[in-house]
């Protein structure tokens, strides 16, 4: 069984306390993770300022160059896995390991690898998006000049603490630019997906970055909270319940459910068939495991027909072997979860919305195409099959997000859009009606707005969403200098 050590400012440490991660298919122990105790974390994190001093001494241009090298190493190199035992990890080992503990098909893992590679190899473009085009040398001097005006920034923290999820490696692209922004990283990996952040760190080290700017702490929830308490700035990924305590803490950026949506404007309502592929991709790509996957489709006409057509199309997405290049769906690491989630959806299908007698029960449109059961076994894995629900806007299933391809189809009056949508991480608005589009531009609830037929999952590197990492880590100060 492979072992992943703790990294204490880059120094490997094997803990007495070991957690095992099972193979999702056999449930047999697959990987051993050294667990960090809270005292150890607190003790290490007293040295954040030293770590930051190491990074600030490196010119940003050099960090950009190293990021490019790290990107290539992440994608292609054999990297250390446990230097204490001499274990290494090839790119294919990494793909198989992520798949074994999360259930994600190899093809999805490779797509996410490319995403991480993309953010590191194009980090200048990413940071230009974050800083709105500031000259990167501002990271070296703290001062820049734009259009003749002086700008100055100061760090809000000496390290960024990140509590990571297990759902999909692509989320790691969100914090990946932090190193070029000269910010040491303190990472708590997800319990089932410890691989990606560890490989990213090793890629940086292989590129030549000093080891003492990374901490990697597999630990329990209390350890994760301690990381967020001890770092001046943090990010936390998780569901509503697990991130609740950080919602009101301005030091911590919370990445919860996305509730991303596809909206067909009234002007395009009759052309809905032309956009079915886009909608299916928005719902199902990456196994429906990302916060940028659409979890509802909002239309002004033809709701029933759109739901039927989506149900028929998405029911073709079926479980396949992990190494099948066409595999999309990911089984659940805990086989009890699909049954619980499916039972919850079934219970809510028959519930009537808060509109009372005018509300209608929801309908699982996909059921007719996939057969009765939403839960399926395939090659030792337990899956939730894609599900399209047709319901009213007030129904409890209208605005929900699950860890598999799930979406509701909701028909509303055009006048109610976008006010009826609620918080939305990504909104793809298919419309040519400028006035309709402008209402979305003005909406405070949409974090990333795709105007036109752009999948919700298509990310532009120069367009940060879910908070701006640069603004999270740095604040602007007023500055004047005597000539």
């Amino acid at each position, binding site marked *: 069984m492979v072992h992943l050590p703790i990294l204490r400012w880059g120094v490997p440490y094997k803990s*007495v306390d070991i957690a095992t991660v099972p193979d999702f298919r056999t449930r047999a122990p697959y990987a051993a993770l050294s667990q960090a105790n*809270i005292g150890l974390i607190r003790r290490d994190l*007293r040295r954040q300022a030293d770590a930051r001093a190491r990074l600030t001494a490196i010119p940003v241009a050099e960090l950009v160059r190293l990021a490019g090298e790290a990107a290539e190493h992440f994608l292609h190199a054999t990297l250390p896995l446990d230097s204490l035992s001499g274990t290494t990890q090839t790119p294919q080992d990494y793909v198989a390991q992520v798949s074994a503990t999360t259930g994600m098909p190899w093809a999805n893992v490779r797509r996410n690898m490319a995403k991480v590679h993309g953010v590191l190899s194009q980090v200048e473009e990413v940071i230009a998006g974050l800083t709105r085009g500031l000259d990167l040398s501002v990271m070296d001097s703290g001062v820049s000049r734009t259009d003749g005006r002086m700008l100055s920034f100061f760090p809000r923290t000496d390290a960024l603490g990140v509590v990571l999820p297990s759902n999909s490696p692509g989320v790691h692209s969100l914090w990946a630019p932090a190193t070029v922004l000269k910010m040491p990283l303190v990472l708590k990996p997800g319990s089932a997906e410890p691989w990606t952040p560890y490989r990213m760190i090793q890629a940086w080290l292989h590129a030549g970055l000093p080891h003492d700017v990374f901490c990697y702490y597999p630990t329990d929830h209390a350890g994760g909270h301690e990381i967020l308490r001890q770092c001046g700035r943090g990010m936390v990924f998780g569901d509503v319940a697990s991130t609740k305590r950080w919602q009101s803490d301005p030091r911590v950026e919370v990445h919860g459910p996305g509730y991303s949506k596809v909206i067909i404007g009234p002007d395009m309502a009759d052309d809905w068939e032309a956009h079915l592929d886009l909608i299916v991709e928005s719902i199902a790509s990456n196994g429906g495991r990302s916060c940028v996957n659409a979890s509802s489709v909002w239309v002004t006409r033809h709701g029933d027909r759109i739901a039927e057509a989506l149900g028929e199309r998405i029911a073709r997405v079926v479980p396949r072997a992990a190494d099948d290049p066409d595999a999309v769906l990911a089984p659940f690491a805990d086989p009890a979860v699909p049954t619980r989630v499916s039972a919850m959806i079934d219970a809510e299908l028959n519930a009537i919305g808060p509109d009372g007698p005018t509300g209608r029960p929801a309908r699982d449109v996909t059921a007719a195409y996939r057969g009765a059961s939403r839960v399926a076994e395939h090659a030792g894995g337990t899956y939730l099959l894609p599900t399209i629900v047709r319901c009213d806007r007030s129904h409890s299933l209208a605005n929900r997000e699950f860890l598999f391809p799930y979406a509701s189809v909701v028909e509303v009056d055009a006048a109610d859009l976008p006010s009826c949508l609620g918080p939305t991480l990504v909104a793809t608005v298919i419309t040519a009606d400028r006035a309709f589009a402008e209402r979305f531009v003005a909406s405070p609830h949409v974090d990333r707005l795709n105007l036109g037929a752009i999948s919700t999952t298509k990310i532009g590197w120069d367009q940060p969403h879910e908070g701006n990492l640069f603004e999270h880590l740095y604040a602007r100060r007023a500055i004047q200098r005597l000539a």
Partner: protein
Amino acid sequence: MQWHFSPETGCPFWLEWQQRAGWDPRTEVQSYADLHKFGGFQDEWLRGGPVRRWVPKGYQGRPVSVFETGGSTGVPKSRVNIDDFRIDYEQFSRTLPDAYFPKGADWLEIGPSGPRRLRLAIEHLAQHRGGICFMVDLDPRWVIKLIKMGEMTMVEAYKRHVIDQALTLLKAHPNIQCLFTTPKLLEALCERVSLKKMGITGVFCGGTEMTPQFHRFAVEELMEGAYFAPTYGNTLMGLAAHKEPEPEDDWAIIYYPPAPRAGIEVVDPTDGSRIVEYGETGRVRLTTLTKEFFMPQFLERDEAERERPCVKYPWDGVRNVRPFSGFATSVVEGVY
């Protein structure tokens, strides 16, 4: 059995129990194994009064202390004490190495006092070894309330308040060489100061769960050469001494009860009549057999592995005691 169930010496609780039970332990309990006939000591018996029902008639007229355990919510469990805490801590004192806990050295206790046995026990330990005990109090019930309210900032502030007081004492009294504190307060203290620079040579640590990883962390990174003596104990049983760690223990914390005054067994959680095999995990069951207190087969809220006897302690011990995983809700352990 003769002492606890004779009308002249026994306490009202057990004498009344005997009348209701309809059998006489003085004749029917002939060995340790016969203690199962009591059917297990019930937690609820110790909650609420009258507390005098626990004072043996044989000790009437003696000064009585009452110590509490639990009590974060509801009525705490109470145990009366006359001399037991002194005897327990004097026996435990023999397990502390003089080189690290020097006779005549002064002590600092940072931890719960108030209604707890520690308030007198640590001071008695220090005095028994010729020292004087300085004290900084901590109210664990308030800490648990703060945690339940999600007031983690206040928890940190309170912890800082406690450690501030400890630092003041350590700096002002150079003869303090021995420390009693809880695992989390030890970590907090060591974040602020070097034990070595403060002249601390021995640390006696207990009060909450300690994991093997904490044990290693404390010895390797906090002690700076001082001796680390972890303990497991409570108001009901007394104090279990630890076995000195050996490499093959892989930092497991192994405790042995203060036999014959008290015993620890590890039983099958689904069948309390079965003592688990050595190395097997089970629920901890305590038995106290002093003249002041008779507590047969009390199921603790902890689990552990059953440990073989060793040369120093030729009776069963327990390895890696931790909260019992069979409870539906987790126990809030707090900072203390």
